[in-house]
């Protein structure tokens, strides 16, 4: 139907993730804008308790596809479970949490059912059929306003942190089984297992102070001022992804959506632009200091204090000042 909104929840062994609750809130808001009530979809095996939990929300229904083939996520089974339902019910929007799992299958699902694809939105505004969506472009340096054109269902994914997790409107929803025929689904991916990334893992989540360094440092041989400041502050060193990808620091120092999520009392980001995948890993820090030569770097939008300048001049000066202050 032209105003139906579905929300597909992600869970881990029946635990609904935080971003899924944020997405439920977003879907409720979207449905209200379209004059309808959102419906949730839960895929898995033995997810009855999770469904009951979701059913305490103001939703038209919680549709549960409980099937052995959905125990471990694979794109083939998930697309198999969702495609025919989306095609027959033709909701206006199907809203997903923007996670690596969602991105892994959402585009292919859109292609399979002939739906539109709108990834990683952070907001929407407007009324009825005329909505303007906001999403980051250029690694978060710019925000784009996007409109959907044409007819038919649109698959949308919602950036984590964009909508409040406690924004879900409470209520009571009926739980309904979603009949899925997965007999015809060819497994496209044989899951062999899951493995932890870093070996001798540094636990950055316990650090009170973190000095994090980005691509702007310029190379593995230019790390000395970072180390000196970390030493003066008694801090751990963290990094953005390119620093790790380039081999300047080991992977267990990575902060962000693929790395560790930290919330120290002081986070110093030097030569880090502030892409959303980095911000999700550190924006809970109590005090954020950004040092960047580009005054327009998005990191300054989440920072409390900033210094615009070359980190190779600023960090040594900062180390001096910290030493002087500490006596």
């Amino acid at each position, binding site marked *: 139907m032209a105003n139906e909104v579905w929300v597909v929840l992600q869970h881990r062994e029946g635990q609904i993730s935080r971003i899924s609750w944020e997405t439920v809130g977003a879907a409720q808001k979207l449905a209200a804008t379209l004059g309808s009530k959102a419906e949730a979809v839960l895929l898995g095996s033995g997810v009855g308790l999770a469904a009951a939990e979701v059913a305490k929300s103001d939703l038209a229904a919680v549709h549960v596809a409980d099937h052995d083939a959905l125990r471990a996520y694979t*794109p083939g089974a998930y697309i198999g479970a969702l495609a025919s339902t989306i095609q027959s019910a033709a909701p206006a929007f199907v809203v997903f949490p923007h*996670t*690596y799992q969602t*991105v*892994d299958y959402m*585009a292919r699902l*859109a*292609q399979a059912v002939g739906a*539109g*694809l709108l*990834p990683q939105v952070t907001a929407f505004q407007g009324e009825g059929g005329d909505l303007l969506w906001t999403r980051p*472009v*250029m*690694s*978060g*340096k*710019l*925000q*784009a*306003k*996007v*409109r959907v*054109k*044409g007819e038919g269902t*649109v698959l949308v994914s919602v950036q984590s942190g964009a909508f409040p997790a406690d924004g879900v409107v409470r209520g009571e929803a009926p739980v309904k089984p979603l009949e899925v025929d997965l007999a015809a689904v060819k497994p*496209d*991916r*044989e899951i*062999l*297992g*899951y*493995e*932890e*990334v870093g070996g001798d893992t540094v636990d950055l989540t316990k650090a009170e*102070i973190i000095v994090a360094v980005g691509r702007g440092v310029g190379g593995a041989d230019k790390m000395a001022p970072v180390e000196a400041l970390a030493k003066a502050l008694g801090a751990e060193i963290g990094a953005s*992804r*390119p620093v*790790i*990808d380039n081999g300047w620091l080991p992977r267990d120092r990575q902060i962000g959506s*693929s*790395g560790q999520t930290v919330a120290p*009392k002081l986070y110093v980001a030097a030569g880090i632009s502030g892409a959303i995948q980095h911000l999700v890993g550190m924006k809970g820090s109590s*005090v954020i200091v950004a040092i960047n030569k580009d*005054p*327009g770097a998005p990191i300054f*939008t989440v*920072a409390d*204090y*900033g*210094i*615009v300048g*070359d980190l190779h001049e*600023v960090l*040594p*000066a900062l180390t*001096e*000042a*910290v030493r*002087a*202050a500490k006596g």
Partner: protein
Amino acid sequence: MKIAVCIKQVPNTEARLRVRRDGRWLEEEDLPFIINESDEYALEEGLRIAEKTGGEVVVFSLGPDRVREALRKALAVGAARAVHLADPAFAGGDALATGRALAAALKRDSFDLVLTGSQSDDVGYGGTGSVVAGHLGWPHVWLVMGVELEEGNRAAKVTREMESGVNEVSRVQLPAVLEIQAGLNHPRYASLKGIMAAKKKEIATATPADLGLDAAQVGEAGSRLEIVSVAFPASGKGAQILQGDAKAAATALVEKLQKEARVL
């Protein structure tokens, strides 16, 4: 193995960005372009697999004339030839429209493996490779951090990044589309010899008609998304910027951290 690698040319994020007069995208004049970061890793992975298995890499790119520079660079590091989806009708496509066009171009040849980057650093839809896989009817994996060929190159053990430091390890049957994440290898630089050799390599071009597609199925016309405007984000609560030279700013910052924020 015969491997296709799809690359995109994107603005260098280090560059000074300006919004175009109509507000809908960046001003591209004087804007430096580079090969998208994760695509560089895809290209390197393709070259390594081709070397190991005695095959070749064919690079594909969709975009205006400037993307020939990106293709030329890919040829210089070792790709055998290139295909340029070159037509104004291809411009402004979302992941569905671009994926449709690339799949049609890939179908004209027969590949054992297609590699793409995981996400572009400009519009960042992160779905083009998956859409290509859908059109080809092949398995796909997004955010690939490791590829090991198995079963006489008929299958691959693929490591996929998941959130918070866990990887999924799976086996997919080939041919497949693997969407490579930055960081799984170390992309090589072009040698002088490679650069010279690239000058003689072929860059074929293809239009929608060549691919059996209608102009209305690709680019902006074939897309469900339309970018209405782009703007720099308003600085949230806004950082207090400490002024002066490095020394003055650093001293002022430490004082703030001690007395105002009380974290030192």
